[in-house]
């Protein structure tokens, strides 16, 4: 599932980015530049296959004897996120984000030498992401009230196993894109604009206990207030 999501996210970025280069600007951005933006939202982060690992014993000749097999994955889960950013120009913005999710880690055991059937062992992981990056708005591609954007950045990951029995940290990189749709825009008052935003991302996580990177796609929707 995560791989399919990855392809989707990559495709979206390519389309948004590629077309953006050759298109002509056609529509203005509702959110004014130079102002603080705050958003909150919910989302979904895709799962990740963490690999298969046999429980091998040694035979007299040194070959393996399979006691059982295991396959471990991190399940997809809902997430909550909060974002703070600023549009430094009509096209470019910078932002920081906190995202919290509680995915389940599953290990499925099969082919046990002494027990029939399969068994699943699981734990819930508290997953915290603190990231920041650049947003490139693409007003030239706007249509139907939607303004597309592309984004990329990096961040810090903190993963708590079993109610903080183990803290695992790491970092991530992401690329993505999406669109915003203005709901309100005014020239006075504390809140100058309000919009909804949809994000699609590919996240590459590098965590202490993982070998290599873990690819996970994510989608989210948020309400953004511009002050």
């Amino acid at each position, binding site marked *: 599932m995560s791989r399919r999501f990855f392809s989707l996210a990559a495709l979206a970025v390519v389309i948004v980015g590629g077309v953006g280069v050759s298109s002509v600007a056609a529509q203005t951005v509702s959110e004014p530049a130079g102002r603080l933006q705050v958003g909150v939202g919910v989302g979904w982060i895709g799962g990740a296959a963490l690999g298969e*690992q046999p*429980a091998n*014993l*040694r*035979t007299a000749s040194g070959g393996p004897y399979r006691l059982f097999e*295991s396959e471990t994955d991190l399940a997809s889960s809902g997430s909550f996120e909060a974002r703070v950013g600023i549009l430094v120009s009509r096209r470019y913005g910078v932002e920081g984000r906190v995202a919290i999710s509680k995915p389940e880690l599953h*290990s499925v055991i099969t082919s046990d030498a002494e*027990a029939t059937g399969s068994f699943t*062992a699981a*734990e819930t992981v508290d997953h915290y992401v603190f990231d920041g990056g650049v947003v490139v708005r693409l007003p030239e591609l706007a249509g139907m009230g939607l303004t597309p954007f592309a984004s990329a950045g990096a961040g810090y990951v903190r993963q708590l196993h079993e109610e903080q029995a183990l803290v695992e940290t790491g970092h991530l990189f992401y690329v993505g894109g999406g669109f915003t749709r203005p709901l309100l825009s005014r020239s006075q008052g504390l809140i100058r604009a309000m919009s909804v935003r949809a994000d699609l991302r590919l996240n590459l996580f590098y965590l202490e206990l993982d070998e290599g990177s873990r690819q996970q796609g994510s989608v989210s929707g948020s309400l953004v207030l511009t002050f």
Partner: protein
Amino acid sequence: MSRRRLQAWLVIVALVLAAPGTAHAYIHLGFDNAGQSRPIKWNSSSVLWYANDRTVPGVSPSQFQAELAQAFTTWESVPTATIAFQFAGFTSAIPLDDDSLSVFGFQSVPELDRVLGSTAFVVDVITGSIVESDVFFNSIFAWSVAAGGDATRFDLRSVATHEIGHFLGLGHSAIGETEVRTDGGRRVLGSGAVMFPISLGRGSVEDRVLQPDDIAGVSDLYPDGNFRSDTGIITGRVRMNGVAVNGAHVVAFNPQTGTLIGNFSGADGTFRIAGLTPGPHVIRVEPIDDADIDSFLDPAGVNVNFQVTFHDRLIVAPRGGTSASFDVTVRPK
């Protein structure tokens, strides 16, 4: 303080030719002192050992000493443990004599026709400190010191590595699988620890190399400075129908590294597995059914009438700490 000495065959910690075998993890040898179980261990930083000067076909005294020295080095090389040995010389002293010398040597013991080797101790029963430990290798069998093994003989270094594990205070591990042969003995299908009680057989040199369970066991007994802070401990309890299960073999499997490290539950059903890489572990519980129970534990009260069970939660070994205790419920056979 008066020192009471106890010479005891604490365990007939022997490799058996085709006898029972089980799959387990490490266990420490110990004894009860005033109702408290205490592990036995060496309390000196460098342990002296002697080699008996007897010869057997295919193994000269110098070859015997060289193979033992390599086996000692294997244990000394565990990076998370601190223990050192020193060869003190050849001797005509016989293993198992109470002479304050720790002697390794060949002896012919035909009545132990399935026993390749055995380790005995003299222990200070006040402190648990090992005072003397002797190891014999049964010369009724043919032995080999060939680098790649000899298909018709038992590899001396492999068996010595196992016996030195006992010499250090380790008991048998049950991480292994066996099948019953037609003659009533057992054949090892797979072994996950040098300290598994049954030999992999003639010609095999696999037990020259320590496995994660062996390394965890010796490191827990002789930890180096970072072992406790870099690894984690899992504790829990095995129950069946609300009653504690005594003698269950509990194995922690790391789904990331593939390592298997285990231990046994006690009379109150509790178990403790130390030396785990921090992270989530799959917990597998099985009865002792691949070897004689007394290869591992006092058989009295040991329950083997339950099914192999995987706990439904992944249990996290915290770095430098101990997991919250949890219950594994097993079902009767």
